[in-house]
């Protein structure tokens, strides 16, 4: 008897759900002219760094093109073809005609889809990487510029002359940042040394913090990072050291206020808004976009009050020359950390030269977390 009772009860409840649902149902608005843009993220939109910066660009795009563009997002997608393809196909299934991948490891899956012929009517945009196709463009920024400036600040602020750098992979993009930071620091403080720990992941809150703690133990008093979360920044706060973030301006976070100096940051909407507009207008030509500080695509976040007046004055001066194009970050003489001359005096690297860097400059000591 009891069993039958349970069954009946269950059915009654199901019907109760059905009943209360009828009120809440609203047909989905399917605006005819709205272009759906699908974003694929590696982390969460509140990671305090990389993905949050991406998502702020996404929201700025939606705000700037209200009524024309609707953005859909998939968070926490692994850098595997299965995960990326699933996310992209599900977004296309939802009506997205533009797919935007935002992590280097998404490139293989997306270029494969773009060139397969099955998705010829979809426009693909990819943040970072080097692939191009008829319906696939990539975009990135000259992060070496604000990185260099953040190095100037670190070089001025350190008293131990040891700077700590939590890095993701020993990949070109990361090494460009390490080198630019080091050159900036050395430009104001020739005795400075940069200690790097590679954690082998873009996004790993625990290991990011652990690596920073190790660097602090080794005597580093300024911590910066090429990794996605606030882990290194928290470690610096705990140790009473300085921190320079990355991707996103966290200066308003009260928990980081005591240690935060600045961060090299992205303004993705500067690229996204005109590009999506050109896709809508049918004038889009896939390109390899490389935004600079002069373009406003990247910048050094406003300096906090923790930064000394002397450092502020120095940064303002150098920033001005970079934006005007008078100062190139990678200008010789540049030696690698085995002492070999890589860029001769008077020469400077252009975009292609920078992106073929396969060394760390003199003054950098790198190790892996494991």
């Amino acid at each position, binding site marked *: 008897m009891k069993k039958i009772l349970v*069954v009946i009860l269950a059915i009654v409840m199901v019907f109760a759900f059905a009943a209360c649902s009828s009120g809440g149902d609203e047909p989905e608005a399917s605006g005819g002219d709205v272009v759906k843009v699908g974003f694929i993220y590696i982390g969460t939109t509140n990671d305090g760094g990389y993905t949050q910066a991406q998502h702020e660009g996404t929201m700025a795009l939606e705000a700037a093109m209200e009524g024309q563009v609707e953005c859909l997002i998939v968070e926490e997608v692994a850098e595997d073809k299965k995960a990326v393809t699933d996310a992209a196909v599900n977004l296309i299934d939802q009506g997205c005609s533009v797919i935007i991948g935002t992590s280097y490891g998404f490139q293989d899956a997306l270029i494969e889809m773009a060139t397969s012929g099955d998705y010829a009517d979809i426009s693909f945009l990819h943040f970072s990487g080097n692939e191009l196709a008829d319906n696939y463009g990539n975009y990135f920024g000259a992060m070496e510029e604000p990185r260099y400036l953040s190095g100037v600040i670190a070089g001025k602020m350190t008293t131990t002359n040891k700077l700590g750098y939590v890095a993701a992979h020993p990949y070109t993009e990361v090494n460009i940042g390490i080198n630019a930071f080091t050159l900036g620091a050395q430009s104001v403080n020739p005795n400075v040394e940069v200690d790097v720990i590679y954690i082998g992941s873009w996004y790993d809150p625990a290991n990011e913090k652990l690596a920073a703690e190790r660097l602090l133990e080794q005597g580093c008093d300024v911590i910066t990072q090429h990794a996605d979360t606030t882990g290194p920044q928290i470690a610096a706060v705990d140790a009473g050291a300085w921190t320079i973030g990355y991707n996103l301006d966290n200066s308003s976070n009260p928990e980081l206020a005591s240690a935060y100096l600045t961060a090299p940051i992205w303004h993705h909407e500067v690229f996204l808004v005109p590009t999506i507009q050109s896709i809508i207008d049918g004038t889009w030509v896939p390109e390899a976009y490389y935004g600079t500080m002069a373009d406003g695509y990247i910048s050094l976040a406003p300096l906090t009050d923790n930064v000394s007046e002397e450092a502020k004055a120095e940064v303002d001066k150098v920033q001005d020359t970079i934006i005007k194009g008078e100062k190139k970050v990678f200008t010789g003489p540049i030696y690698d950390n085995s002492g070999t001359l890589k860029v001769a005096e008077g020469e400077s690297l252009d975009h292609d030269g920078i992106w073929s860097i396969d060394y760390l400059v003199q003054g950098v000591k790198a190790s892996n977390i494991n």
Partner: protein
Amino acid sequence: MKFTPAITQRTGLSTRQSVTYRAIAILLSVVGTGLVLMLFGLNPVRVFGAIIEGSMGTPIRIHQMINSAIPLVISTLGIIVAFKMKFWNIGGEGQIVMGAFGAAFVAYRLPDLPQPLLLLLMAVAAAAAGALWALIPAAFKAKMGTNETIFTLMMNYIAILFVTFLQYGPWKDPARAGFPRMPDFSPNAVLPNLFGNNIGWVIAMILTAFVYVFLSRTKKGYEITVVGESPETARYAGMNIPAIIIVAMAVSGGLCGLVGMIQASAIEKTLTATISAGYGFTAIITAWLARLNAIVALFVCVVFAMLVQGAAFIQLSLGVPAAVAGVVQGTILLFILGSEFFIQFKVRLPERRRRTV
């Protein structure tokens, strides 16, 4: 006063009764999930509808669903063979990874072989590598009676770290400028498609039939079941128990190894340390849900893949956070697996003292 409920093994539960219990479980899972969704302020009927629509609504969604089902079905078959013998193979993940490694080894060494031959060799290498990885704990169990649960679990980490080492070290693609990724396979090493999905779905159906026949119609399959039910009976009947353990685990690991080959060849087109994507663990759940029956497993895995694809769909279409989609899956499983307990065991609450009227 004691309030401990008495739990006793059930005997002679009729088919009708167990079907009723399962039906109740499914209903309760729907109700329970509905309550959870309402807690999150979501409309349960709309979410359930979206899960079904999201997994079956368009050809794209069906293809996506089948793509998720293929590795799950074959992993589940592998787990079933081991579990039938009550050999708790928690090492599916590692066997999948080693299978993918075996396939990749062949794909990188002989990239220019004709496609059918290359794929066949990759499959053989994958099955052999997966089987070998399962045979190590099997041999220890057969010879020394070690605990296979811990042993197979630990073998996962060795396999994953081994492939991670290759990915970050000797097998890293130098063309990637330092990014840890292995080179893509040659086109000949990629499984072809049939009706929009990689041919793995045909392999999965064939293997389902194979495992069903193997377990229920062959002498070895019967022996595996007997060893699982009662090793004493098996010994008394003169069965060679170590040999049976070895054969069963070779089949189990070989099947998991094939999953690695299919995923590496058809989906990733390269080897990655994350290739197993949890299939080896999920397969334990689906194997139980299927009551270790290969044919039933095929359907259970398809339903499971619908849940996975449906969960991805509701995140996009209804803006449901990823965590809630996970809670939905977990709640459904809790009820359905929970019902198995009540089918196997009788639970009697302690009797209250009778009130005198």
